[in-house]
C-alpha cells in the first residue's frame, strides 16, 4: 500500500494525469489498433494450440467400425429407393422412411408443426435417460436433395440395431431442412412432443451427403450455433480424430487439415468470426443445421460430404458418424471437459477464450477511454439529468422499434412461419408454395424497412452540414452535447463488456464497426478553427464552381469527416454492406440479412436483433442527434487558456 501511495503521490506531484488526459483519443485509437493487432497475432505460430481430446471417456478411434463393404450394398439399396421418391411430398416420403425404421424395430412419430419425422432406437441395456441425435435434413444446406444422407441414416440405424453397445438412446430426425423445421423439432422435443421421447439429448450430428454418388472427396464440419454458442470442442475433435484414423481429409471454413500457413489460419479465423456472428441470420448462407440445437445444452455439429470423385466411399462417411456416436456413447457425464469458448484456426488448431478475449476487451476499453475523453477534453460538466432523459427517450423509441418491426414483418407475411423458398423445389404440395410466398412477403417488408432506415442513416449523417453554430432553434447545450456523446460511447463499451464471454464475435464486430463513433469528439475539436477563415476565402472566390466545391469541402473538412463517421458506423449501413457481401446471385444478401434479423427471435430465439436495435442503434442515434443539433464547438482546455494568457 505504501508503495502505491508513494507512486500516486509522485503522479500527483508531476501532474501527469492532465497531460495523459489530452492524449486520451490517441490512446483510444491505439487500443483499437491493438485489438485488431491481437487478432492478427493469434494465427502466428506459438500463439495457438493443437486440438486434443480432453475427456478420457470418449476414447475416439479405439473401436473398430464394421460399417463396411457388406453394408455398402444396403446403403445403395436404400439410396435407390430414396432417389425414386424425390418428387413425392413430405408426408409420403416420411411414411416410407418410417416404415423402414419400424421394420428395423424403431418407434417413430411425426412432429405435427412441420411434419418432421423422428424415430427412437432405445438402447437395449441402457437406462433411457440420455440420447444422441442424428439429424438428416431432406434438403442439405447447399440446396441439394440429401439422398446419401437419408439412405446412410437408415442403413446406419439397421447396423446400430445389431450392436449391443448402446448406453444412450439414438434419435433420428428427418426435417425438411436444417433451418426452421429442425429448430422447431428441437424446441418441440423439449416442450410439447410427449408421445415419443428418449431422455435428455447430449449431442447431435447433422448429416449431409447430397447426391447419389458412392464417393466423396473430403468432409467439412460446421459447428457455429446461434447467439455465439459453440459445441464442446471435444465433440469436433472426436469426429476429426476419427476422420484422421480413417485416412480422410476434412476441413473447417474451407481450410483443409493439411493446409497450414499463416494466411490460411487467419482466413479461417476471420471466416469463423463472421460466421459465428451471422449464424442463422442469412438463409441460405449461414445456416448449417447444427445451430438449431443451440440453447438446450446440446453439443451439435454438422458433417457435410464434399465432392463426388474422391477415393473415400460413402460407408467411410458412415463410419465417421458411427464411431463418433460410439465415442459419445462412452461418455459418463455430459460434455464438460475441453472448451466451450474457442476460435478455430484450422481443423487442428484453435485458440481458447483466455487467448482471444483481450482483443474485444481492448476495444471495450477503447470506447470507455474515448468516452472519458469526451468528458475531460471538452471542458464540460457531466450533465447526468439530461443524459438520463435523452437516452431514456431514445432507448424507449428503439424498444418500440425492436418490437414493432418484427411484428410488422410477421404480420405482412400472414400468420404462418416461413420455411425457406427452396423447399418448393422438393415437391409441389400446397404447404410448400405458401411457405415461399410467406418468404417473399417477409422479404418485401424487410426490404422496405432496410431501405427506410438506410435512407434515414444517410439523412441523419448529412444533417451536420446544416448544423450552424449561431442557430438558436433546437440546439443542445454544450454540456448536454458532450455528456450524451460520452454516454453513447460508454454504453457501447458496456455492451461489448456484457457480450464478451457470451457472444465474443458479436461484441468484437460491433466494437470494430462502431469504432468511427469514437472519432467524432476529436474531429469536432477542429470545427471552430476551420470555419472562421473559410468564410473569408469563400467570399473572395465566388465565380468558379469547381473551386467553390473544393473550398466548400476544404472549409467543411471536419464536418465531412463527422458525416463519414456517422455514416459508416450506422448499423443499417453495415447490414447493407455485410449482407451484400454475402449476397447470392440475386444480390439480395442485404435483404436476406435484414429479414433474418427481424425474424430470428421469433423463429430461432436468436437475440442478435435486440443487441443491434437496443444496444448499437440507440448509441448511434445519440451520436446522430449530437452531431445534428448539438453544440460541437469545444472550449479550449484550462491549461491551453493559461498558455495563451502567458503568451499575451
Amino acid at each position: 500500500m505504501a508503495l502505491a501511495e508513494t507512486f500516486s503521490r509522485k503522479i500527483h506531484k508531476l501532474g501527469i494525469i492532465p497531460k495523459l488526459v489530452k492524449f486520451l483519443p490517441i490512446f483510444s485509437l491505439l487500443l483499437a489498433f491493438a485489438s485488431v493487432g491481437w487478432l492478427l497475432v493469434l494465427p502466428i505460430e506459438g500463439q495457438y494450440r493443437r486440438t486434443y481430446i480432453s475427456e478420457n471417456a470418449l476414447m475416439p478411434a479405439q473401436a473398430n467400425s464394421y460399417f463396411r463393404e457388406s453394408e455398402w450394398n444396403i446403403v445403395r439399396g436404400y439410396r435407390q429407393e430414396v432417389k425414386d421418391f424425390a418428387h413425392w411430398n413430405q408426408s409420403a416420403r416420411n411414411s416410407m422412411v418410417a416404415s423402414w425404421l419400424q421394420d428395423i424395430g424403431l418407434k417413430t412419430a411425426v412432429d405435427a408443426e412441420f411434419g418432421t419425422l423422428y424415430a427412437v432406437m432405445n438402447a437395449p441395456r441402457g437406462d433411457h435417460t440420455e440420447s444422441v441425435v442424428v439429424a438428416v435434413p431432406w434438403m442439405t444446406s447447399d440446396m441439394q436433395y440429401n439422398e446419401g444422407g437419408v439412405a446412410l441414416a437408415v442403413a446406419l440405424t439397421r447396423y446400430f440395431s445389431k450392436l449391443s453397445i448402446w448406453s444412450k438412446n439414438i434419435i433420428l430426425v428427418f426435417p425438411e431442412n436444417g433451418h426452421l423445421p429442425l429448430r422447431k423439432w428441437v424446441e418441440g422435443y423439449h416442450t410439447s412432443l410427449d408421445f415419443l421421447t428418449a431422455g435428455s439429448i447430449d449431442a447431435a450430428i447433422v448429416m449431409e451427403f447430397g447426391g447419389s454418388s458412392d464417393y466423396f472427396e473430403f468432409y467439412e464440419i460446421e459447428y457455429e450455433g446461434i447467439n455465439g454458442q459453440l459445441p464442446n470442442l471435444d465433440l469436433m475433435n472426436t469426429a476429426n480424430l476419427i476422420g484422421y484414423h480413417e485416412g480422410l481429409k476434412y476441413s473447417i471454413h474451407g481450410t483443409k487439415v493439411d493446409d497450414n500457413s499463416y494466411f490460411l489460419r487467419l482466413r479461417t479465423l476471420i471466416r469463423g468470426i463472421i460466421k459465428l456472428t451471422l449464424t442463422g441470420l442469412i438463409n441460405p448462407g449461414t445456416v448449417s443445421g447444427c445451430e438449431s440445437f443451440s440453447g438446450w445444452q446440446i453439443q451439435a455439429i454438422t458433417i457435410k460430404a464434399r465432392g463426388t470423385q474422391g477415393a473415400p466411399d460413402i460407408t467411410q462417411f458412415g463410419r465417421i458418424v458411427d464411431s463418433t456416436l460410439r465415442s459419445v456413447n462412452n461418455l459418463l457425464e455430459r460434455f464438460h471437459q475441453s472448451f466451450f469458448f474457442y476460435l478455430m484456426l484450422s481443423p487442428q488448431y484453435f485458440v481458447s477464450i483466455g487467448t482471444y478475449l483481450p482483443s474485444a476487451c481492448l476495444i471495450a476499453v477503447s470506447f470507455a477511454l474515448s468516452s472519458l475523453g469526451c468528458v475531460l477534453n471538452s471542458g464540460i460538466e457531466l450533465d447526468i439529468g439530461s443524459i438520463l432523459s435523452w437516452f431514456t427517450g431514445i432507448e424507449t423509441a428503439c424498444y418500440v422499434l425492436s418490437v414493432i418491426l418484427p411484428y410488422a414483418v410477421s404480420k405482412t407475411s400472414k400468420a404462418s412461419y416461413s420455411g425457406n423458398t427452396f423447399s418448393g423445389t422438393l415437391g409441389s404440395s400446397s404447404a410448400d408454395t405458401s411457405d415461399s410466398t410467406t418468404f417473399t412477403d417477409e422479404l418485401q417488408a424487410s426490404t422496405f424497412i432496410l431501405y427506410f432506415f438506410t435512407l434515414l442513416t444517410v439523412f441523419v449523417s448529412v444533417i451536420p452540414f446544416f448544423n450552424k453554430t449561431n442557430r438558436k432553434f433546437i440546439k443542445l447545450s454544450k454540456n448536454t452535447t458532450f455528456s450524451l456523446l460520452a454516454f453513447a460511447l460508454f454504453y457501447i463499451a458496456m455492451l461489448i463488456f456484457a457480450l464478451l464471454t457470451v457472444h465474443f464475435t458479436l461484441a468484437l464486430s460491433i466494437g470494430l464497426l462502431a469504432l468511427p463513433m469514437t472519432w467524432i469528439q476529436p474531429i469536432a475539436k477542429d470545427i471552430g478553427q476551420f470555419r472562421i477563415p473559410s468564410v473569408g476565402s469563400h467570399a473572395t472566390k465566388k465565380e468558379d464552381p469547381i473551386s467553390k466545391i473544393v473550398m466548400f469541402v476544404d472549409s467543411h473538412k471536419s464536418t465531412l469527416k463527422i458525416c463519414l463517421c456517422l455514416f459508416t458506423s450506422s448499423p443499417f449501413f453495415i447490414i447493407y454492406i455485410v449482407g451484400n457481401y454475402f449476397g447470392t446471385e440475386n444480390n439480395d444478401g442485404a435483404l436476406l440479412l435484414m429479414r433474418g434479423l427481424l425474424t430470428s427471435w421469433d423463429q430461432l430465439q436468436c437475440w442478435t436483433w435486440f443487441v443491434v436495435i437496443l444496444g448499437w442503434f440507440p448509441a448511434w442515434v445519440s451520436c446522430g442527434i449530437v452531431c445534428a443539433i448539438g453544440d460541437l464547438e469545444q472550449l479550449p482546455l484550462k491549461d491551453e487558456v493559461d498558455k495563451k494568457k502567458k503568451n499575451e
Partner: protein
Amino acid sequence: MLNGIFVLGAAVRLLPPSFVPDLPSTVSSVEVATPFTSFNSLQEAFYYLQHGINLYDGGVNHHSPLLVVFLNFFNDLPYSYIVFNVLYTLIDLWIAYRLIQLNQWYFKTRSAKVGAEKSEKSERSESGESKQSAKDLTVSNLIKSPLTDKLIASFYLFNPLLILTNWSHSTLLFTHIFLVESIFQVAVEHSLSRGMLLLAVASYLNYTPIFMVIPLVSLALTVTKGDKVKVVEGVGIFIVSLGLLVLASFAMTSSWQFVESCWITIIRFDQISPNVGLWWYFFTEMFAFFHPFFVGVFNLYSVMFILPITIRFSENDSKGTKSNYLGDSFLACILCYTWLIFTKAYPTLGDLGLVLSIIPIFKTSFLSYCKFGGFTALIMSGCLLLSPIFYYCWIVLGNGNSNFFYSINLTWGIVHGLILMDLIWGKLTYDYINENGVSKELQKKLRLTQI
C-alpha cells in the same frame, strides 16, 4: 413534491406486480431472492400450514413460523396477490418515511453537537487568539446542509435494487422494516425497550441482525446519555423478547424444528444454493471435509469486527480523550450492518440496496470526503450486468461454470469492501480536518496516508 415522490414510488411498486401477477417469481433470480427470503417458498409454507403439514418438512421452507402464520392471514384474503402488493408497498413507504426522519434527526444531533463543541472550543482557545479564526472557518465546514426529504425518499424509493427486492416480494423487507424502525426508535424516540423489541423481531426473522444489538445499545447510550445500566437493560430486553418469540414459535409448531430450519441452516450453510455472497462456493465446490472449518471461520469472521467497529466509531469514550463530535454511533450502526451483509451467509442485492439508500444521510457530515463513489458505481454496474449473464451461461447454456458466476460474487464483495473503506476513510479524513482545524484552502492540498 414529497407526496408526489411517495405516490410515484408506490405506483412503481404497486402497479407492475398487479398487472403482471407473475412478476414476483420472474424477478426472483438468485441475485434477488435466496431460499431464506423467497416468496415462492413462503407460498409453499402457506400450503403446508393450510393442510396441516409440518412447516419444515422437506427442507423447502426457511421462514420463521410467526412470519408464515402472520402472512397467511393476508393470503387467506380475497385477491391476496394484490393485498401482498399493497402490503409490500406500504412497508417500503414506511421505511422511506423513517429514513427521512432519521436524516432530519442526524442533521439535528450533529449540528447540536458541533454547536456545543464550537462554544466549548472557543472558550478553551481564547488564549490562543491567532488560531481562533482558522478554527471558526473549520467549524463552519463541519456541518453541511442535509439532503432534502425529497432526495432521501427518492434514494430509497427509486433504488433499483430495492425495487427489484420489492417486486420479488422478498421477506427481507420485513427484516428491513424492523431494523430501520428499531434504529429509529432508539435514535429518534429514545426508546431503548421498543428498539430492542423490534430488533429481536428482526433477528428472529433473519438471524443476521442479531449482532446489531451491540451497535444499537451503543447508539442508545449516546442518545440518552445513560450509564452502563442501560447496556444490561437493552441486552436484557433483547434476550427476553427473542426468547419470547422462540417460545411462541415452539408453542405454535410444537417442535424445535424451526430453529434448525431458520437459524442453524444459516449458521451451518446447509442450504446449498448459489447467491451473491462470498461463501456458497466453498460449500458446493470444495471438499466436504473442510466444511466444519469453513463454517467456523466464516461465522467468526462475520462477528469478529462488530465490537471493534462499535468501539472505534461510537461516541462513548470513557477516557474522554476523543473530542465529543468525533464519535458517530449512527455511523457505527451502519458500518456494522454493512459488514454483516458483506459476510452473511445468504445475501441478496436488497441487502446492499438498503445500505446504499442510508448512506446519503451522512451528507451532513463526512460524505464529501469519500472519493470512490464513481469507481464503486462502475464496478457495481459491471457486476449487475454480468452476474445474470454468467449465471445464464452456467445454468441454462451449460457452457460456463460456477467459477464465472462466483468471480462476479467476489467482485460484488469488492463493492462492499470499497463502500466500507470509503466510509471509514471519509470519516477519518473528516475527523482529522476538524481536529487539526485545517482550513479550506489547505484541505485541497491535504493528502492523508495511512501508516
